[in-house]
């Protein structure tokens, strides 16, 4: 049988024998989730019983100096690989399925479908912003007990949603981290797709959707036989286990392929929605704001404005957060209008252009996010080494690192890494602004005219981001 070869694919990892056996093993996801849940439980206990000094408590340091900064890094390299082992959903899913790793026959859930008006990314964006706001207002990072309460709230929310709605409705519509994971996953050099679409076309059982005795149907309510983007795929590998034709591949591929690839069809995919595009544009403002609010200049500004207006700093920060998030949306709309004017063609609505032209800005958004997190990981993150030996702050020294004062890289190196990462993000976005319009517009000149304002917007964003990164940030602890 001739092997179907898709464009941009380097290697199908399922061709590697041991890898295939591991992926098809029913206990894979349970093992990973249980391991993460174990560490998560320790983190919860340190929040409950450990020192209230954030920088000396494993709960705070591991959550906000390791896990949170590593999220966008894992997305960049492994799509939604974190979701494969996410501990938040673990108890909820096990309770819902009434099983741990085996295929259960019953579910403890009403299995309702999420209402249609909620089947988008808006709620996730609101929850993500709420989390961000709570972090700044209640000092989640500096106060271990706040991290504890946040974690318990998310656990509970996941369980409640899973008891009412079907499958992984929490992951698809409620998870606050999903708001950033979903767009970022599209740039990753890995994907889970059907190997040969003709085989899927001929398949009558659609076990990847409905499940069978070997596993569950796709928990994200997608159709793996037709998935063409990483937006929703959790890499849970259920479809690999259930596919009767062994037709699901895990491909190493060209990065950014989800954004510009040929043959998808303009707006013919449901994996890209206006709400997702809104999140991308919103992130273009929120990420630099997160950087700015950790600088002394912003802290002074907020304090002075609050005192001048006679309101609390919380009010000022809330307004600033929403305004700076909406500002790029407004600017983006202006540039879109200019683009639309320049192409002089009403074939494409502003709405469709809003949805699609947001895609090329994903690389610069994730690049700034990763660049910002270099500071947390490489400078602040060394605090996890002494904390590892004394997770509760009781004065232990389990691994003889309690007194360690480690410097991974000098401060200058972090700056260089940040600027070069954002630089790479700018180049990637520029490349996508070259490739994507060629698939959007039949006429090359039309594509060029439409793209010019977007390139100018990219240059403006890049300048702003480079400036933001040069401002020294205060640490979390």
């Amino acid at each position, binding site marked *: 049988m001739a092997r179907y070869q898709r464009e941009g694919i380097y290697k199908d990892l399922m061709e590697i024998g041991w890898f295939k056996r591991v992926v098809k093993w029913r206990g894979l996801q349970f093992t990973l989730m249980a391991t993460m849940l174990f560490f998560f439980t320790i983190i919860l206990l340190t929040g409950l019983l450990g020192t209230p000094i954030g920088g000396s408590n494993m709960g705070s340091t591991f959550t906000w100096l390791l896990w949170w900064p590593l999220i966008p890094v894992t997305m960049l390299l492994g799509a939604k690989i974190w979701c494969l082992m996410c501990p938040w959903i673990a108890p909820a899913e096990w309770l819902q399925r009434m099983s741990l790793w085996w295929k259960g026959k019953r579910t403890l859930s009403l299995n309702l479908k999420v209402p249609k008006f909620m089947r988008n990314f808006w709620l996730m964006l609101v929850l993500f912003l709420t989390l961000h706001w709570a972090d700044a207002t209640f000092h989640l990072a500096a106060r271990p007990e706040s991290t504890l309460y946040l974690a318990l709230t998310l656990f509970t929310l996941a369980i409640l949603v899973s008891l009412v709605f079907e499958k992984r409705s929490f992951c698809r519509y409620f998870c606050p981290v999903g708001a950033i994971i979903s767009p970022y996953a599209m740039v990753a050099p890995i994907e889970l797709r059907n190997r040969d679409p003709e085989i899927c076309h001929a398949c009558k059982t659609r076990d990847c959707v409905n499940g069978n005795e070997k596993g569950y149907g796709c928990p994200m309510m997608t159709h793996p036989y037709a998935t063409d983007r990483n937006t929703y795929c959790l890499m849970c590998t259920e479809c690999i286990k259930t596919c009767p034709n062994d037709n699901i591949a895990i491909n190493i591929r060209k990065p950014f392929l989800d954004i510009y690839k040929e043959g998808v069809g303009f707006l013919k995919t449901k994996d890209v929605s206006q709400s997702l595009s809104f999140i991308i544009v919103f992130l273009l403002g929120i990420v630099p704001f997160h950087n700015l609010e950790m600088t002394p200049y912003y802290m002074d500004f907020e304090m002075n404005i609050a005192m001048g207006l006679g309101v609390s700093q919380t009010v000022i920060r809330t307004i600033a957060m929403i305004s700076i998030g909406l500002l790029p949306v407004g600017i983006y709309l202006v540039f879109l209008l200019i683009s639309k004017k320049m192409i002089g063609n009403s074939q494409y609505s502003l709405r469709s252009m809003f949805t699609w032209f947001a895609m090329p800005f994903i690389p610069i958004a994730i690049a700034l996010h990763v660049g910002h997190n270099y500071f947390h990981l490489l400078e602040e993150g060394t605090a996890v080494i002494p904390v590892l030996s004394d997770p509760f702050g009781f004065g232990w020294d389990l691994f003889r690192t309690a007194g360690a004062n480690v410097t991974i890289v000098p401060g200058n190196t972090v700056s260089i890494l940040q600027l070069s990462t954002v630089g790479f993000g700018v180049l990637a976005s520029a490349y996508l602004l070259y490739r994507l319009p060629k698939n959007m517009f039949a006429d090359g000149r039309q594509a060029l005219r439409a793209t010019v304002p977007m390139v100018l917007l990219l240059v403006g964003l890049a300048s702003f981001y480079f400036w933001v990164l040069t401002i*020294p940030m205060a640490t979390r602890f």
Partner: protein
Amino acid sequence: MKKIFLLLTLLCVVAAGGVSLPVLAAGEHDPIFQVEFSSAPRFPIVGQEAELTFKISSMDGNPLAGQSVMIMIEKKDTAGHGHEEDGEHEDEEAPAGGHDMANMGGGEEEPPPMIHLVPDEVSPGVYAGEVTFEQGGRYIATVNVMGEEVDVVIGVRSSPVAWWFVGGLAGLVTLLAGTVAVTKTVRRTW
């Protein structure tokens, strides 16, 4: 004669260096005592009286009994700064209310006044006193004995564990899980 003179000079220089270098390397001066801190509860809670215990001993471990001990407790949340433009990395103790993330936002509260504690000697070398903290966070207790000072870090909880919140979440989950189970049993939709 000249050779003897040079040799003696060289010996003096070596001797002086041998004496002064360790002194220079030791810094200003070595502490003459050490402090082992504990409290009841383990981490003091805002608004609740906590017993702070300081076990003071000499560097060779002998308890320092009968000393006049003065302790000053001040809130000091760490405020580090990231890399500066010239690549330097500073870490400095910020006074409470200064520029650091932990003091942002609700950070409109005034820093609490310094606490002066004169503990009682409850047993040879063990000094204890009661303190009620007004704010949560990181405190530095400066223990002054015989004019020498040693710092001890004290972490203070903003509030006790909100068991009502934890219990409430657990109750909510149990209630909903039970409701779903009953519903599915009645409808026979397992």
